[in-house]
C-alpha cells in the first residue's frame, strides 16, 4: 500500500471503549475478517497475554496473534504449585502447556512471575518461547528505544518461525486495518475463537453466556444501573462473570480498567507518523499503555482520573489475584487517591468471582451507592 493510499484512509476514531472480551462492536468484527484474510497465508499461531505485545506486529509478519486469556484449563498442570504463585501466571503457563495449537509464545518482563514462567515454559514445553523485555521505566528516551529494539528483536524471532519481515507499507496496512479491533477477538484462536466471539458461537454454555453479555460504555440496555468501574490486572475468562453479576445486582460496568479491558489497549495511532514510521508509531502507542507495573506508575493514575470522570463511575471494583504484588500493592493507594468507594475483590483464580460471597459483596456495595 502506498503512503498516499494510507493517508487517504479515513481517520481513526479515538480509542474505542469496550470490554475486551465482549466482542460487541461491529467495527471490530468487520475488521477482524480483513485481518484474518491478511493472515490466511499462515496458520502459525503466536500466543501472548501481555498487552504490551502488539498484535499488529505479529500479524504483519504473516503470523496469527492470539491473546491467550486463560480459562484456565483442566488436566495435569505444568505448574502444580499454588503457594506464592500468581494464579494468572500459573493459568497462562498451564494453558500454554496443555494447548496443542500454539506454535510459539511471547511473554514479557512486565511482571517477575511471568518472567519466571518464561524459564519454566522453556524447560517444560517444546514450544518456542520469546521473552520481550518491556522496560518498567517510561520517562526516558532510552527506555522507549529499548522497547522499540525489543520489537525488532521479536520481529527476527517471528521470521525464524516462518514469518516474513514486513515492509513499512505492510505494517502500516495492518495497523490501519486494526482500527476497531476488539482486544482478544483480533487474535481469535482456532480452539477458543467461538468462546471469545459471541457472534461466532451458537452454543449457550455458562462460560459463553458470561462472555457475551458484558455491558460496555456504549451499552445502554441498563441505563438505570449504578455505574461502576472495574480496575485491576488481567481477568481470566471465567472472571468475566463479574459483569453479569454487577448487572444482576443493579449496576453496570462503565469502565473496564483491567489489563484485559479498555486500559490494556494502545493509544490511537497517529496517522501521519504511522505513514512515515509505522513501527515507531506502533511502539509509541503500545509503550504508553498505563499499568501498575510502570515506574513510576503515575500514568496509570492520570489515565484513571480522566477515564473515571469520563465514564461517570460512582464506585470502583478493584480486582487482583493473590500473589500479584504489583496490583495488590495498589489497592490501598487507590483507595486513598480515589474520591470514590472501592470494593476489593481478591481472587485465587479458582472461579471465586462466580461465588455467592462475591455476589453478596457486590450487591451490598451497590446498595450503598444507590
Amino acid at each position, binding site marked *: 500500500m502506498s503512503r498516499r493510499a494510507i493517508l487517504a484512509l479515513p481517520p481513526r476514531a479515538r480509542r474505542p471503549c469496550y470490554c475486551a472480551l465482549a466482542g460487541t462492536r461491529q467495527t471490530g468484527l468487520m475488521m477482524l475478517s480483513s485481518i484474518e484474510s491478511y493472515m490466511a497465508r499462515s496458520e502459525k499461531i503466536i500466543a501472548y497475554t501481555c498487552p504490551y505485545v502488539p498484535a499488529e506486529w505479529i500479524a504483519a509478519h504473516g503470523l496469527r496473534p492470539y491473546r491467550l486469556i486463560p480459562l484456565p484449563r483442566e488436566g495435569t498442570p505444568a*505448574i502444580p*504449585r499454588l*503457594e*506464592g*504463585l*500468581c494464579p494468572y501466571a500459573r493459568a497462562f503457563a498451564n494453558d500454554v502447556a496443555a494447548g496443542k495449537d500454539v506454535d510459539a509464545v511471547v511473554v514479557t*518482563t512486565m*511482571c*517477575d*512471575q511471568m*518472567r*519466571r*514462567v*518464561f*524459564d*519454566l515454559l*522453556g*524447560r517444560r514445553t517444546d514450544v518456542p518461547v520469546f*521473552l520481550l*523485555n518491556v*522496560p*518498567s*521505566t517510561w520517562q*526516558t528516551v*532510552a*527506555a522507549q528505544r*529499548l522497547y522499540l*529494539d525489543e520489537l525488532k*528483536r521479536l520481529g*527476527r524471532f517471528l521470521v525464524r518461525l516462518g514469518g516474513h519481515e514486513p515492509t513499512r507499507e505492510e505494517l502500516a496496512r495492518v495497523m490501519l486495518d486494526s482500527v476497531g479491533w476488539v482486544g482478544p477477538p483480533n487474535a481469535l484462536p482456532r480452539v477458543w475463537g467461538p468462546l471469545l466471539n459471541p457472534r461466532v458461537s451458537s452454543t449457550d454454555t455458562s462460560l459463553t453466556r458470561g462472555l457475551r453479555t458484558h455491558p460496555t460504555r456504549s451499552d445502554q440496555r441498563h441505563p438505570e444501573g449504578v455505574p461502576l468501574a472495574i480496575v485491576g490486572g488481567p481477568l481470566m475468562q471465567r472472571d468475566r462473570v463479574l459483569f453479569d453479576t454487577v448487572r444482576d445486582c443493579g449496576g453496570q460496568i462503565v469502565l473496564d480498567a483491567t489489563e484485559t479491558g479498555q486500559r490494556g489497549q494502545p493509544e490511537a495511532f497517529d496517522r501521519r507518523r504511522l505513514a512515515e514510521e509505522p513501527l515507531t508509531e506502533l511502539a509509541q502507542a503500545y509503550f504508553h499503555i498505563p499499568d*501498575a*507495573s510502570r*515506574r*513510576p*506508575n503515575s500514568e496509570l493514575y492520570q489515565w484513571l482520573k480522566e477515564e473515571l470522570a469520563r465514564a461517570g463511575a460512582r464506585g470502583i471494583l478493584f480486582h487482583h489475584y*493473590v*500473589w*500479584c*504484588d*504489583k496490583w*495488590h*500493592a*495498589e*489497592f*490501598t*493507594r487507590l*483507595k486513598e487517591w480515589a474520591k470514590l468507594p472501592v470494593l476489593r475483590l481478591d481472587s485465587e483464580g479458582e472461579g471465586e468471582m462466580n461465588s455467592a460471597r462475591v455476589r453478596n459483596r457486590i450487591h451490598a456495595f451497590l446498595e450503598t451507592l444507590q
Partner: protein
Amino acid sequence: MSETPRQITLQEWDRGYERLQAAGVSQPTYGGPLGRHVDEGDARLLKLRFDNSPAALRLWNFLLTEEDRLRAARDNGKKLVGAMKDLGTVPVMAYSLDNLVAFYPDGAWWIPCVMEVNSGLLQIADSLGIDESFCPVRAMLGAFVTEAHFPIPDLLTCSVGATCDDFSAIAQRLNGLGYPILWWEIPHRRAPEDNEEGVHLPGGFSAPRGQIEFVKAELERVRIVLQDLAGRSLDDEALARGIVKANRVRELLARLREVVFTATPCPMPALEMLIAEMLAIHFCSDQDETIAVLQKLLDEVHRRVAAGTGYSSVQAARVFWVNPVADLQVMNLLEDCGGRICGTEYLLAHALDPIPPDVPPMEALAQMALADPMVGSAVDRAARIVAEIRRFGAEAVIVSRIPGASHCALEGEILGEIVREECGLPVLEIEVPPLTDAVYPSLRTRLEALVETVANRRSR
C-alpha cells in the same frame, strides 16, 4: 586472645567481653558488649549462638551499629544515599565520593527477625496495604515511616525492570507516600543473539553489547544525580579509585569464602559468614571499616586452619545454601543438625565478583549490574550454582524460600530440577519466615533428614 572455636550465647559473649577488656584487647569505637543491643530491642540475639572470636564480635558490633554511623555521617555533613534493590552497583559509585554514604534500606528486612517482630514495622506495612503476602522487605516501609531505624536518605535510587515484584511494588508504595525515587532500569539479561556482539560478564554470564550500553546510560543518569548531590565531580578517575576499593572488599570475601567453604573442620560458622557476605552490598555504611572487619575475620580463619581447629567434623554434611534466610537462627540450626556450609548464593553472587579493572569504570559497573544472578533467567542462576557446587564439593543443596517473594514461587523448582539433573544431589526447599519459632521443629526435622540423606549416600 585466642580460644578454641566455640559457638556461645549472648550472655557468654558479654562475660567474654569483660575478659577481652581485662586482657587489653582493643575494640573499635563502635565496640562493646553485644548485650547492649538487646537493650535497644534486638531480642533475637538472645536466641542466636555466636562465634567466640574477637573478630566475630567486631563483625556483629559493626552490623548492629549501622544506624549510629549513618546519623553520625549526616551530622558530619555527609549526604546519605539509599540504594534500593541494588546489590552493589550504586553504592560503589557513591563511595567513590568522600562526602556520600550509601546504604541499603532493603536491609530493614532483617529488623522483624532481629527485633522479634516487636518493632511494629510490619504492622505499619500492613496499614499501608502491604500485608504478609509480600516479602519481609516490606518492613522497610515501616522504617521509612517511623524514621527509627535509619535516617531518611537525601537521595533514594531504585533499580527496576528485571527485579522482584515485591520490592518494586513496595518501592512504588513508598514513592506514592511522597518519597522521591530515582528509578533506573535494569533489563532482563539475555544471551547475545547471532547478529549481536556479546560481552562476557564477571561470573560467567554473557550479555549483548546493546544491554551493556543501555545500563551504562542508566548509570550515567545516576552519576549525574550523585554529582549534584555531592556538589563535586564523579569522574572516571574517582570511580576507578572507588572500584579498586570495592574490589578490596570483594577480594577479602573471596578469600574468606574459599578457606571457610573448603577447610575441615570448618573455621567459621554459617551465621557469621552470612553476615560477612552481606557487607559486600553496601559496606555497612563504612567501606574502610568493612575492609578492617573482613581482614580480622580472615586472619582468624587462617589462624584456625593452621591450628586445625574449627567447628565441624568430617562427617558434617556439606551443604550449598541458596537465598538468604529471613530468620538468622536457621543458620545455627543447620549446624545443630550436622551440616555445614560449603557454598552459598545469597542473591548477591555478583557483588562478590571482582569488578573488571581493565575497562572504563561505567562499563565495568554496567557489566556488574547485568551480572546479577537475579536479573537473568533461573537457568543462568542454576548454572552458576552448579559450578559453585562442584568447586566447593557440596553434597546437598538447600533452597531457602523467602515468604511472599515473587521470584521464589517458581525459581526454586527450576533450580532444584537443574541441580538434580547436573549434580545428582539431594535438594531441599524450605521456607524461612522472619521468626521460625512456630515451625522450628519441622524445619529441624527436614534439615536432619537432609543430613541423614547425605550420610546414607556416602555409605553407599
